[in-house]
């Protein structure tokens, strides 16, 4: 017994090494399995960059052209791999430029560790050059943040940062490191973090609640599943599929849940929400049991809460207790990890088909097809439509590509029409609606999935919000495919102006530069398509390119995205035109 005990402590004892704080940061990243980070150097983070230079064979640093690009690239990487994305920046403006990316990661639950340099400890609060209170600024948009002022804090805080970012409901963590802490030496030893007192990442699942859930599902006549990103983050795709197949439940997805279930799966009925499909929205108010899995009843999903699924019993499978009864009062909450919960639920579920209920979705789809989809996919008008471009891309990718979208009309169209047969393949800015997201996020997504095609679909507005990242693509020879659907407008805002502001197009007309020439300046193969007859060949050429490729498609200027639930209206009152 004694000897055993001794042995145990002996193996636990690791030798410490005397290194600088900056080198310790690199060691921490390597210990966490990080091999790729995105960032931009500057004064207060220079000691870390000096170490990045020395460790470049083990840790690749991708230089973005703006810190915001670094943050989105790290998000793209995280979303496609399921690993923690890392972005690094200097103090002051470097740090504040990360903030929009951090806010985006917070609302879309993306695991991110952001490292920022900070002025030396003795200068804090002196309004030193490039000093900003990034802890104060980032607090409302981080899952956790911490300012390191001593080198000796580095290993513990970095371990904690990665653990918090990836565990439970993931999110962004910011670690601010004063310059003196980067320069000072410490006795380095690294223990990965496995728990934090006061933090419970996954709430306990009550098995009684699972039994009640099963009873409700088994006795429902019109059960309906709406799933969100929780299924992807919790890697519960198989369990979701097994549940809906066994119980014969039609399943719809939120924008962030897209790709968790194959688009062509017979029980996949489409998207819910403001620009979702007709059936999934209207039938939300006709089901008798709504089973929400890993989604948070965002206002873009629910429309008017007073008329949302009032007739139905609601079960909410959720990892974050604060989401339960936040927007929609539910009858039963099953807290915990989606995968574990669904796995435990499955044996309690009786086989069922619910054919006539499923037929209601098919009928509604037919209505949507006749009034919206047909004219979009097979237009008789001269100008190209966004949906036919997506359809053309589908034809080549067959649903196997990673599709990255920006924000606006093209985003809604892409999510409605793009096909997926693999999870973690739809990368978009959902909760925050961050224009400028797609181009950098596609860089990260491609680097996280080198063997796969990554297609960024972007509007002409959003493309110009981080257009400088073409430089990153050029420098790193990142073979992303970039499609700009150019309608010469900030299309979604223009659509609202047309529908709700009597066509007063305030600041939504874009006079655009020659995008093809800009891309040529970055030595990226480029092509512009204006005619329908050229679309197929252009998409073919793009998809068969081994290098980065830019395709601009000039589309109809004033098309609207339908169906649409006007802001504040009920899901039942979704408009088809």
């Amino acid at each position, binding site marked *: 017994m004694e000897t055993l005990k001794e042995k145990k402590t002996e193996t636990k004892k690791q030798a410490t090494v005397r290194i600088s704080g900056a080198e310790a940061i690199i060691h921490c990243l390597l210990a966490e399995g990080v091999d790729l980070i995105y960032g931009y150097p500057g004064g207060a983070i220079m000691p870390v960059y000096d170490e990045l230079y020395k460790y470049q064979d083990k840790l690749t640093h991708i230089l973005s052209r703006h810190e915001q690009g670094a943050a989105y690239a790290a998000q793209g990487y995280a979303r496609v791999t399921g690993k923690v994305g890392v972005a690094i920046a200097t103090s002051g403006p470097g740090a504040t430029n990360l903030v929009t990316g951090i806010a985006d990661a917070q609302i879309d639950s993306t695991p991110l560790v952001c490292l920022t340099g900070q002025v030396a400890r003795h200068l804090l609060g002196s309004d030193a050059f490039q000093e900003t209170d990034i*802890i*104060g600024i980032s*607090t*409302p948009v981080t*899952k*956790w*943040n*911490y*300012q390191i002022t001593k080198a000796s804090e580095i290993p513990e805080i970095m371990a904690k940062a990665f653990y*918090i970012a990836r565990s439970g409901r993931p999110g962004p963590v910011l670690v601010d490191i004063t310059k003196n802490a980067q320069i000072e030496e410490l006795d380095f030893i690294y223990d990965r973090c*496995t*728990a*934090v*007192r*006061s*933090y*419970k990442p996954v709430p306990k699942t009550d098995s009684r609640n699972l039994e009640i859930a099963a009873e409700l599902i088994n006795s429902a006549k019109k059960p309906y599943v709406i799933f969100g990103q929780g299924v992807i983050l919790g890697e519960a795709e198989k369990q979701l599929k097994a549940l809906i197949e066994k119980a014969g439940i039609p399943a719809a997805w939120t924008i962030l849940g897209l790709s968790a279930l194959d688009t062509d799966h017979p029980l996949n009925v489409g998207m819910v929400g403001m620009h979702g499909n007709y059936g999934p929205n209207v039938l939300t108010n006709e089901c008798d049991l709504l089973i929400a899995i890993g989604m948070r009843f965002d206002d873009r999903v629910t429309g008017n809460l007073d008329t949302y699924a009032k007739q139905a019993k609601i079960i909410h499978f959720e990892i*974050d*207790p*604060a989401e*339960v*009864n*936040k927007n929609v009062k539910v009858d039963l909450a099953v807290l915990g990890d989606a995968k574990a919960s669904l796995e435990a639920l499955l044996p309690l579920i009786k086989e069922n088909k619910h054919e006539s209920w499923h037929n209601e979705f098919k009928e509604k789809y037919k209505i949507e097809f006749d009034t919206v989809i047909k004219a979009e996919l097979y237009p008789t008008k001269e100008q190209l439509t966004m949906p036919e471009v997506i359809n053309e891309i589908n034809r080549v990718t067959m649903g196997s590509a990673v599709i990255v979208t920006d924000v606006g009309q093209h985003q809604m169209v892409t999510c409605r029409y793009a096909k997926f047969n693999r999870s973690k393949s739809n990368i978009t800015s959902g909760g925050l609606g961050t224009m400028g997201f797609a181009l950098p996020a596609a860089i990260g997504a491609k680097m996280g999935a080198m063997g796969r095609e990554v297609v960024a679909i972007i509007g002409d507005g959003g493309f110009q919000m981080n257009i400088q990242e073409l430089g990153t693509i050029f420098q790193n020879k990142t073979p992303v495919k970039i499609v700009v659907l150019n309608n010469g407008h900030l299309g979604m805002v223009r659509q609202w102006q047309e529908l709700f502001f009597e066509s007063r197009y305030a600041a939504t007309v874009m006079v655009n530069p020659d995008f093809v020439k800009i891309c040529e300046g970055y030595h990226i193969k480029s092509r512009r398509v204006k005619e329908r007859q050229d679309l197929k060949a252009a998409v073919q050429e793009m998809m068969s390119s081994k290098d980065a490729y830019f395709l601009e498609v000039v589309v109809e200027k004033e098309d609207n995205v339908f169906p649409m639930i006007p802001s504040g209206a009920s899901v039942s009152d979704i408009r088809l035109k």
Partner: protein
Amino acid sequence: MEKKWFTISVYSENNVGLLNRISGIFLKRHINIESLNVSKSEINNVSKFTIVTYITEDWARRIVGQIEKQIEVIKAFYHTDEETIYQESALFKIASHLLFDERQIQNIIKESNSQIVTVSRDFFVLAKSGKRSEIDEMYQQLQPYGIMQFVRSGRIAVSKAEMQISALLQEFHSLKQ
């Protein structure tokens, strides 16, 4: 739903920045904090926030959920006034001559159950602990004679029901192993 006074109690780690994180949750929702007190708690190295706010119970529940979600928060509760024992403290600084010139002042001190903390040639200081209404009443009584300085603390409160933080910490501790 009707607005009420709620006392929100938060047990947390004692870390820099947590106050900002918690107050930010109120700020984001445009909810005013009526009073805030941070002190040590019954558990070593665990801080306790006592926050008073006038909101609906629905909001109280949601805010407590958001507070509990913060990494360094161990547990948060909300209680109505009936569910807690609570007090505030106040200090009144008053000119010393009034003690002799105005007989009524001595009566106020006696009846209000307040204490004289210090007396100097120029002023004396009264301390009063109790319900907000008692402090307000004393303020009203003293005001006509002149109050040189007045300050009142945030509410401090203990719940009538058990909070079982030690058990929770035990549970967290066992998770670690």
